[in-house]
Structure formats: structure tokens, C-alpha cells
């Protein structure tokens, strides 16, 4: 088993953990945590393919990962703001109660 496969397997597990967390939790902050885990799995893939894949330009993977982290940070900020707004509206952050957008 080569290092790339190991890394990919690891990141797949990490993604699965994140997905499970996001789906199973009712607390919206914990759902956000699950999302972060899944994003990190993706970042891990960027690094792994850059490090172990065919030769490529120096630091490409790292730059990609850093971009991704920055975007994730912004996304998390929005997510937390949503959580606060949610709290203000319904005095709680349970996702199962936030069904106002029902069609």
C-alpha cells in the first residue's frame, strides 16, 4: 500500500466522520463542526495528490490548501452568524426546529 493510498483512505475516513457528524447532530454548531471536518478531508487530498502524485510545480498543493482554508474560514464566519440569527429568532439552535423555510 503506497503512501498516496494511505493518505486517501485516511481522508475518506475523515470525510465519513464529518458527514456522519453533520447528519446525525441536531445542534447546529456541531453540524458546522462536521462540515469543517469534511472540508479538512478535502484539504488533505490536495496536499496528498501534490506530494505523492506526478511531478508538478513547487508549492501548488500548499497554496491550494491555504486558499481553501481561507474560504472555509469565511464560510464558517457566515455559518456562525446564521447560528446567532437562528438563536435570536427561536431562542435555541436546534436544527429540527428551524423549519420556517418550508415550501
Amino acid at each position, binding site marked *: 500500500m503506497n503512501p498516496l493510498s494511505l493518505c486517501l483512505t485516511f481522508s475518506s475516513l475523515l470525510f465519513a466522520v464529518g*458527514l456522519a457528524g*453533520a*447528519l446525525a447532530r*441536531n445542534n*447546529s454548531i456541531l*453540524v458546522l463542526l462536521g462540515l469543517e471536518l469534511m472540508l479538512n478531508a478535502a484539504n488533505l487530498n490536495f496536499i496528498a495528490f501534490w506530494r505523492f502524485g506526478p511531478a508538478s510545480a513547487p508549492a501548488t498543493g500548499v497554496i491550494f490548501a491555504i486558499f481553501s482554508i481561507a474560504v472555509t474560514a469565511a464560510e464558517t464566519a457566515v455559518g456562525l452568524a446564521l447560528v446567532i440569527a437562528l438563536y435570536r429568532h427561536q431562542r435555541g439552535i436546534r*436544527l*429540527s426546529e*428551524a*423549519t*420556517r*423555510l*418550508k*415550501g
Partner: protein
Amino acid sequence: MDAPAAHLWLIPALPLLAAGLGSVTPRSGRRFAAGVAIAALLGSLVLSLLALHRALADPAAHLTCNFAWFDLGTGAMRLGWLLDPLNALMGVMVSGVGLLIFIFSLGYMDTDENFTRFFCFLSLFAAAMLGVVMANSLLLLFISWELVGLASYLLIGFWFQKPAAAAAAKKAFITTRIGDLGLLLGLVWLYNSTGSLLLYDGGHGVLEGRVLGALATPALAGGWAASTGISLLIFCGAAGKSGQFPLHVWLPDAMEGPTPVSALIHAATMVAAGVFLIARVYPLVAADQALAAAPVHALTVVAGIGALTALLGAVIAVAQNDLKRVLAYSTVSQLGYMMLALGVGSWVAAIFHLLAHACFKALLFLASGSVIHATHHEQDIRRLGGLRGRMRTTFATFAVGMMALAGVPFLFSGFWSKEAILHAAAAWDVSRLPLYVGLTAVVLTAFYMTRLLCEVFGGAPRSPAADHARESPPVMTVPLLVLAAGAIAFGFLGTPAWPWLQSQLTGAEVPRRSLLEGGGLMAGSIVLVATGLGAGWALYGRRPRAAGAAPDPLAAAAPGLFAFLGAGMRIDALYAATVGRLNRGGAVLADFLDRRVWGGAVGSLGRLGELAGRAYGGVDRRGLNAGFDAVGGRIRGAGRAYSRAQTGEAHGYLRALAIAFVVLAGLILLGGGR
């Protein structure tokens, strides 16, 4: 511009001011309204006398005062006032006779509740008539002419509660309007030909040599001169106002107005306006006499119409039973005389007769007004009678007027003026017909006036109203006495032995003639007058009518003819059957066209539009609307179905995402990455 003429505008302006004041006077201000009207007319009379004095100082001159009314392109429309013996005499006559009639009205209209309105209208009439007389511009004359027509309409219809009076007012207005259309066309033609409507304008006026010479050339097709056409059109207007055949029908009906109005308008002044107009523009009317080759001369037409009217009026007057209608038809006849005199070329004789007639016809009307007032509006001569002893002053003055009208020799003005006309007719070299017609009318006039006098004043009273009649108050009898004096004295101003009036009017010395010159004609007419008087006395005076219902001696002799004449020769019926029926037929045709043809066409167009609308409506509702509704319904259903998926639960969405991801990943893996 001459100084005396510059003040002439005051003569019509004073009564106009009085009319203005009268129109804002409340109904209770009777004294004020009458006082203002009489004072204003008195002022006009004084001014007219001053003007006459000035005019007689230089009878041949035409003093004018012209002014621009408004600018018109490069020129200006000019109006003006004129002073010469003709219109100064007319002005004195109108304001003098008018003043007496105003005073008479004080008594006659005493009990009428619209007393102030009456005096307002009278003043308006006097102002308009004086405007006609004093105008130097045919346009100004026309304006005043129409105002005279308006005043006449208002006064004939003064008792508009009576349907007959309202109808008579309309009839007078419309009939004279037919003539006035001719007059207006004549003025337009004249203005088009000469560029001026001023009568005298220092050599440029339409009555002065230079312009007349241009008008009297045979410029039109058939050798007609423009002046002939213009003159005939102007004569249309004169015929309408002066009650000439065939436009005379309004004058007898106009007797529905109050009697002072009949005296003022329909005997003395307004109906004389037509004669005055022709005399005023006489140089224009006579201009084509110089053309020997002209197919017809304007004056010949005037003479023919005048003779016809003189005869017609006299014949119809014989068979009238209404006191005022007899006088009305005699007015028609006398106006015919005046036109005849104009036509045979003696406008001086026409004006002489006009002035004399104004005096004695006003007298006759006022005297009959006095009778009507005393008998509480009994106008049927069959139901009067026996008034000689009951109303002595009225009887005496009426007799004077009657003799003046009949032309009783030597003492009365009517004799001299009628003689002047007959002599002029005898001297006419175109035809002898006017002379014979005039002589026939002399007999008839004497006859019907004798009949009238005997029926009204002779015999015994034939109704309670006549039995209880008493003499009218002095305010009514004094004007009668003044007019009677005038009816006698006026004639001596124009006798052949001392032709003062003639020489003043023409502005040249008229040679004196002995009474014996042309004595044969005079003797003949005296015999005819005597015949008429004798026949009238024999039929009506010797054996007075016993009862109101007794038949007229003439009616007993020829009932059909008498009834025919009594109905005014059925000219009204003739007009109703021809012009009236034509008009009605046109109206029916127009109504048919409107209602059926045009209305039908427009209606079917409308129905066609409606049909198309219905069809479009069906297509819209069933086709288009249903199609769009169906599409809309589907979209709404699809939206509803989709909205069911939107549960609003974040987990549900995430779950669907995850399942989709897993399926996608599985498909990619199974496909081996290709």
C-alpha cells in the same frame, strides 16, 4: 368732417341710453322708466330740430362725419353720420311722432304690469330707427336696421303670453329676415365692387358720381349693370321691412302687439324705413336709368312691386273686420304707393307721402288705440258702433285721420301727397299701369276708410263694451289732437303752389305751379275720392248695421269673394301650402335620411362591430384564456408538488445531498473511473 354732423351721434345715443337705464330699472320704477324714455326722446327731438335747422341752411350739401371703426388689412372699415334735409326731416318725424306715441303709451299701458319693460323696448326702437336715419354708412345703417327688427320682434311679442302674439313676432322677424338677407348680399356686392360702404365721402362715397359711373356700366352678362343687381338686392331688404308684396304677410299679424307699438312701428316709422332706404340710395337705384339697353331697370321693378302692393293692400282692407287689421292693410297699400312713387322716379313725392302718412297713420292707430282702451280690447268692428257721441275727441281726430288717408281734397295732407304721387306716375313714360293702379287704390282707400269710420263710430252700440265706452284721459287725447293738427297742416308744406318741401329735399329751387296745371288729373282723383266716400256712405253709413251678427252688405252680395279677401287673399295659406309644405317636406326627408338611412348605416356598422366583438370575446374566453389558464394551472400544480420537497429541515437537505454524493461516487467507482 363737418362740425354739425359730428354731434349727430347724440340723436340715437340718447334713447339708447334710456333703453339701457330702462333695462336695469326694477318693475316698480314705472315713473322713472317712462320719464327717462320721454326725456331722452325729447332731447333727440330738440337735437333733430337743431340739425334740421342746420341742414336747411344749405339744403344741397351733405354734411358728413366719417370715422374708422376698425382696421382691415391695408384699409379700414369706416362708419359715419350724415346730415342733409332728407334725414333731418326723417329724424324730426321719427322723434316727434315717437314722442307723441310715448306720451300716449303712458295712458294706454297704464294698467300693464310690464310698463317699464315696454318703455325700455320703445327707447331701443327709437334709438335703432334714429340710427338708420342718421347713418352715413350702409354698414351702420344695416346694424341699426337689424336692431329695428329686433325691437319690432320684442314689441310685437310684448304680450307673449298670447300664442298669437308670439307667433306674430316670430313671423315678422323671419319674414323681414328673408328680405334682410338680400340687403346684406347687396351690401357685400357693393363693398366688393367699390371697397366702401360710405354714402358720401368727399367724392369717394357710393352715391357720388365717380363710383356710380363705374357701377352703372353694363359689366355683367346680358347687359346688366352691377348697380341694377345691387339695387334689387337692397330693394329686397326694403320690401321686407316696408311690407311689400310678397313679403307683406307679417304686417297685418304684427297688430297683435300693443296699439302704440302698431302706431309707432307698423304705421309711422319702422315700415317707412324701407321707403327711406330706397330714397336714401336713390342715386344708386337710378344709376342704370342711363343705360337704355339694360334688360330691366331697378326702378321699374320697384314701381311694379309698389303698384301691386298698393292695389293688393287696398283690396284686402275692404274685407277686414278687425279694426287694426283694416289699418294694417291700408298701411301696406300706402307703402306700396310710396314705392310706386320711388319707382316712377319721384323720391321727393315718396318722402312727402311718407312724412304725411306717418302723421295721419299714427293718428289713426292712436285713435283706434283709444277706442280699444275704452272698450276693453274690443277690436271687432262688427261689435263696436255708436262711439261718436261717447268719445267725441277720439271721433273727431279719427275722422281727420281718415279723411287725410282717404285723400279728401285741399284741407288734408294725404290729398297733397297722393296728388304728388299720381302726377309723378302720370309723367312716367315707361308704363301707364302705375297711374291706373294708383287711381283704383284711391277709390278703394276712400271706400274702406268710410266703412271703418261708419262701422266704429256710427249707428248704435252693438256690444256692452261699446255701450259703456267713455272718453280716454287727456294723456291720450292730447297727442291725438297734436297729430290731427299735423295731419292737416303738413300738407301745406308741399303743395304745387308752394313746393317748399320739394325744393328743400332736392336742394334746388322747384318752380311753383298753378293748381290748374294738371288739373284734369286732380279733378279726376277728386271725383274718385268722392265716389269712394259716397259708396262707403251708401253701404255702411245710411243704414248702419243693426246687430253684431248681421251680415256685411258686401258679404251678402259676394260671400265667396268677401271671405277670400277677408283671409288676406289666402296668401298665408298659399305660403303654408308651398313654402311651408316644401320646408316641411324637406324636414321630413331630412328626418327620414337621418333616422333610416344614415342612422341605419351607422347602426349596422355598430352592430357589425358588436358582432366582431362577440366573436373575439368567444375566442378570447374559450381559446386564449382557457389555454393560458391551463398552462397556469399546470405550473401552479408543479410548483405545489415541488414545494412539498421543501420541508425546511436542514438535515433533510443534507441527507439528500449525502445520498446523492454516495450514489454519484458509487457510479464513478463502478464505472472504473472512466
